[in-house]
C-alpha cells in the first residue's frame, strides 16, 4: 500500500492520458456505463477498476459515483440509512417512471413488503417448482435439438426465465411474454432516455391490467394474491394501488431481465473451455458450484444506485448529500482482496464470496429461483448436447449499461 499521507507516487496506469489510451476515456473522472467501449472491454474495465480505483466518478447527465471494491460495496449496501434506495436505482432516471417497490424504498417500508413476499420465493417454495422448470428446459430443447444448431438467446435464453416466472409465479398467458421481454429490454438499454421511459410505461400498463383483473378473481393464495392483499406501513396507512402494481413490475423486471446473461455466458464459457466442460460432464454434482462461479463472473446486474442522505467519505473520496452512488456489484465479485485469481473462471472454486445477487436488505428476492433455472439448464443441456460448440465464424454479442445482457449466441452440436 502506498502511504497516502505523503506525496503518493503517480501510478502511470491511472493518469488521464493512460486511461484515454486504454479505455477511450478517463474512466476515473468520467466513467460512462452506457459507453460502447465499456460494453466491448467489459472484463478488462472491471478487473482494472477493482484493483486500481475503489471509487470513480461519472459526469454523464446529473453525474454519479461508482463504488467498486467489495468491502466498500458491502458497507454501503448494508448502510441503507446513508445510501438510500428511495430515490431509485437508475442513474439519470428518466422523468415519469414511478418508483418500484420493494427495490426503490428503504426499511421499514421495504421490510413490510419483503416479509410478505419472501415466502413465495424462498428455497423451500422454489424447490417445488423444480420439476416444472426442468420440463420446460426439455421442451425448449426439443424444439431445436434435431436442427443441430440454435441461436441460444432467442430460442432458449430469454424464454426459460420468462416461462419459469410466468408459469410458476405470475400465472399470465405465455403469448404476452415476447412483448413484455421487449419492453423490459428496451426500457433498460434503449439509447434514448425518453424511449426507455415509454417502454417502461408499457410494462406498467400491462401489469396494471393484469393485477386489476386478478382482483376480480377468486383468491389462489399465490404471489399475486399476496401483492393484492398488500401491507400496512408503519404510519398505519395501507399500501396504495400504485405500490402494488410497482411490486409486480419490479418482480417482472428481475424475473426476466437477468438470468439469460448468466445462462448464455456459462454455455459460451463451457464451449470455449473444454476442460471445464469435461469436468462437469464427468461429475454433474459440480454443476451447482459452477452456477455460483458463473453468477460471480458473469454478472447481469453491473451496478445499482443509491442516493447519499448525508455527506460521507468512501475510500477517501468525499461524497456529498444528494449525490447519486452506484454499487458496482460486478466489480465487487472479482475483488483480489477476497479471492485468488479473480479473473479466472473455475467451476471448482470453493466458498465464493460474490455479490452478484446484491448485498444488504435488497438482496435479490429471486436468487433461489435464478439458481434453480441455471442449474436445471446446465444439467439438462449437458445431458442432451454434451458435444455442443460455438458455431463456426460467430461470436456472442452483448449490450451493457447498469445491466449487462447477451444479444446473440450461435451454438451447434
Amino acid at each position, binding site marked *: 500500500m502506498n502511504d497516502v499521507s505523503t506525496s503518493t507516487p503517480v501510478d502511470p496506469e491511472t493518469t488521464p492520458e493512460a486511461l484515454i489510451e486504454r479505455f477511450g476515456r478517463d474512466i476515473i473522472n468520467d466513467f460512462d456505463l452506457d459507453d460502447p467501449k465499456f460494453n466491448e472491454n467489459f472484463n478488462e474495465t472491471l478487473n482494472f477498476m477493482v484493483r486500481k480505483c475503489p471509487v470513480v466518478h461519472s459526469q454523464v447527465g446529473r453525474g454519479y459515483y461508482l463504488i467498486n471494491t467489495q468491502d466498500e460495496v*458491502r458497507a454501503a449496501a448494508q448502510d441503507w440509512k446513508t445510501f438510500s434506495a428511495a430515490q431509485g436505482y437508475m442513474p439519470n432516471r428518466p422523468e415519469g417512471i414511478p418508483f418500484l417497490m420493494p427495490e426503490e424504498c428503504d426499511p421499514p417500508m421495504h421490510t413490510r413488503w419483503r416479509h410478505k413476499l*419472501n*415466502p413465495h420465493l424462498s428455497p*423451500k417454495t422454489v424447490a417445488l417448482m423444480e420439476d416444472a422448470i426442468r420440463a420446460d428446459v426439455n421442451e425448449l430443447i426439443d424444439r431445436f435439438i434435431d436442427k443441430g444448431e440454435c441461436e441460444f438467446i432467442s430460442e432458449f435464453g430469454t424464454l426459460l426465465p420468462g416461462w419459469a416466472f410466468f408459469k410458476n409465479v405470475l400465472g399470465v398467458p405465455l403469448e404476452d411474454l415476447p412483448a413484455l421481454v421487449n419492453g423490459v429490454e428496451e426500457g433498460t438499454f434503449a439509447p434514448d432516455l425518453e424511449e426507455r421511459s415509454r417502454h417502461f410505461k408499457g410494462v406498467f400498463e400491462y401489469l396494471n391490467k393484469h393485477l386489476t383483473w386478478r382482483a376480480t378473481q377468486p383468491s389462489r393464495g399465490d404471489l399475486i394474491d399476496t401483492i393484492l392483499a398488500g401491507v400496512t406501513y408503519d404510519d398505519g396507512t395501507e399500501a396504495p394501488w400504485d405500490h402494488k402494481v410497482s411490486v409486480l413490475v419490479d418482480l417482472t423486471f428481475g424475473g426476466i431481465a437477468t438470468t439469460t446473461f448468466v445462462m448464455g455466458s456459462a454455455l459460451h464459457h463451457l464451449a470455449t473451455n473444454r476442460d471445464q466442460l469435461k469436468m462437469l460432464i464427468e461429475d454433474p454434482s459440480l454443476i451447482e458450484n459452477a452456477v455460483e462461479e458463473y453468477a460471480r463472473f458473469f454478472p447481469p446486474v453491473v451496478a445499482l444506485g443509491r442516493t447519499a442522505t448525508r455527506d460521507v467519505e468512501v475510500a477517501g473520496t468525499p461524497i456529498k448529500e444528494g449525490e447519486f452512488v452506484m454499487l458496482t456489484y460486478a466489480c465487487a465479485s472479482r475483488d483480489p482482496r477476497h479471492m485468488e485469481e479473480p479473473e479466472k473462471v473455475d467451476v471448482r472454486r470453493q*466458498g465464493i*464470496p*460474490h455479490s452478484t445477487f446484491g448485498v444488504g436488505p435488497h*438482496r435479490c428476492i429471486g436468487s433461489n429461483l435464478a439458481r434453480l433455472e441455471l442449474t436445471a439448464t446446465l444439467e439438462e443441456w449437458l445431458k442432451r448436447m454434451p458435444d455442443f460448440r460455438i458455431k463456426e465464424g460467430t461470436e456472442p454479442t452483448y449490450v451493457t449499461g447498469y445491466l449487462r445482457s447477451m444479444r446473440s449466441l450461435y451454438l451447434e452440436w
Partner: protein
Amino acid sequence: MKVHIDEVNCTGHGRCAKYAPNVFRLNDEDGYNADRGLTIEVPAGEEKNAMLGVKSCPERAITVVEE
C-alpha cells in the same frame, strides 16, 4: 467452535446452509438463517464446512466467536 449469526446483516442468501447443511439451517418460511441473532455450536468434524459457509456469506453475517 462457536459461530454467531448477525440478526440484521443476514439477508437470506442461503450460502451458509449450502456449504454446511449440518451447521446452518434456513428458516422454512423466508429462507433466512434460522439462528439469526444467536451463537451456535459447530458440531465436531464440521469446522471446515462451517468455515466455507462463513467465507461465502456475501453479508459477512457469520463470525467465529470461539475457535
